[in-house]
């Protein structure tokens, strides 16, 4: 059976529903609802990506190196306190976020109640009258079924950027 004929699996449809909902919540800065989509033991990781030669055994990113995010649930919750604080002056007027999610693929994960989900993300931020450079990243997520609902248990986003083309990351990727 060719790729074009492959029926959309129930798993793929469920994963897409999850990712699209998540993107919509992030666009609308509905952070508490977003946080509720994560498992308590979530690991949310956006490592810094270094320019290293192909032969360099240390690779462009690794655990323990500097990251944009290397967060557990409590860290994410703290960031949300900052995002939603009345004194987060630079969030007012609000940023106009667009989280584009594409190229979704689903594979079995190690655990039976989990899915390994690949996707691409493009994040646009319009701020005041200007637009930040778009951010591009490749995600690798683990979605876990908890009481019948999918939850994000692990996310790794590998950015296509070495020097982040922006002053900050006032969103999640």
């Amino acid at each position, binding site marked *: 059976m060719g790729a074009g004929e492959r029926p959309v699996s129930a798993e793929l449809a469920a994963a897409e529903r999850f990712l699209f909902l998540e993107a919509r919540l992030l666009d609308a800065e509905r952070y508490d609802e977003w946080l509720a989509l994560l498992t308590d033991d979530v690991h949310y990781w956006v490592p*810094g990506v270094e320019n290293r030669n192909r032969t360099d055994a240390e690779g462009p990113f690794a655990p323990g190196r500097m990251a944009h995010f*290397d967060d557990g649930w409590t860290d994410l919750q703290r960031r949300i306190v900052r995002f939603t604080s009345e004194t987060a002056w630079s969030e007012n007027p609000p940023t106009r976020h667009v989280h584009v999610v594409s190229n979704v693929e689903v594979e079995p994960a190690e655990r039976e109640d989990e899915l390994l989900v690949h996707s691409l993300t493009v994040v646009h931020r319009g701020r005041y009258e200007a637009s930040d450079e778009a951010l591009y990243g490749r995600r690798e997520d683990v979605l876990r079924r908890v009481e019948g609902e999918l939850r994000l248990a692990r996310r790794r986003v590998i950015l296509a950027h070495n020097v982040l083309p*922006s002053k900050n990351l006032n969103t999640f990727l």
Partner: protein
Amino acid sequence: MSLPPPAALVDVERGTVDRRIFWERELYERELERIFARCWLFVAHESQLPEPGSFLTTTMGEDNVIVARGRDGVIRAFLNSCPHRGNRVCHAERGTARGFVCNYHGWSFGLDGALRGMHESGAYERTPGFDPAEHGLLQVAQIDAYKGFVFATFDAEAPPLADYLGDFRWYLDILLDNDDGGTEFVGGCIRSVIACNWKVAAENFAGDALHAGWTHDSGARAMGGASVPTLDGQESYQVNVNGHCWEFNLDLVGNAATFGDKRVTKNLRVREQELAERLGPLRARMIGAISSATVFPNMSFLPGQQTFRTWQPKGPHHTQLDTWVLVNRSLSDELKEAYRKGVMMTFSPSGVFEMDDGENWEYSTRSNAGVVTRAQKLHYGLGLDSRIEHPELKGNVFRSQLNDANARAFYARWTQLLEADSWAQVNDR
């Protein structure tokens, strides 16, 4: 419209700064020549170059350089640009190598920057007068280290690093020499771009305690559940030496507490007595206090959070921020990890404190696009009468960290360097 000389743009006595210094291309070009091609600039921490063959690439002004540890163990810095057609010879930001080979014509250079050979080298061997020894990568004029921090300058006439830093070394020792094992960077580097003039950022770390409680209120609430404490009325200071600036109070852990990690603050409290024996009780209480510092022109750091960074100029309106984390080598792995995570959460592009700085700095720069706007002078007059003599503190000392004294000293140094034709005309100050 022609610009007045730099000395007419900064009025240290009255405390005013002309906004054009943050905008004009002509002044920026002069900064590249007279500040960045002349001053000692931070290029590496020795821990980033652990063994022969270790290298990294960075910029001095807009000049890209390779910093490499040779087979002989010596750290050198040289231009990352082939003397044949000018192409960059190393595109990796760090790693280990035996040398550097240009992608264009295969000119190859050793870890010491010397030309070793090239593609079709026979053609050159038959070229009269071609001497490979004359065609290495251009070495910096001077390179030296202070307690693990490697600095370089393109100016052979620059004073020795020890004199350039002067008595500021006494302050740097608080972070670089509070433990026998020395220091290291952990975790590598995060890099980002801010659409601001580089001085807006360097000045902020030099002496802007005022913004902390206002700009960073949301960050402080997120990490510690409370606002930054009121700084007015506390014992605090601004000090500067040769344009190098440090503002601080003596609360021991005020900066460190922003990690919201009791292990970090506890470690400093436990060490206070030991630190007092080594540094004296006053410097001991600066170790993690509410404070910030800039080594002129463009390396800044925060004691307590231990973020070290450079503000790399990328044109008059853009700055590349490179951020590292400094820890004592002897620190436990658990605490090193706490610092890596703490910096990431607070002062990196995703950090809940850093996030608000960039927005302010971009519009402090961008507003000057307006010709009427940039014709206005900015107020730098806070604490004009605050200079004091202090029995212990070195350099120029000012009462209260809520002060523009360090910003004035930073711009006084900036003016002096832009006006001077050579280092012979630059005084210690």
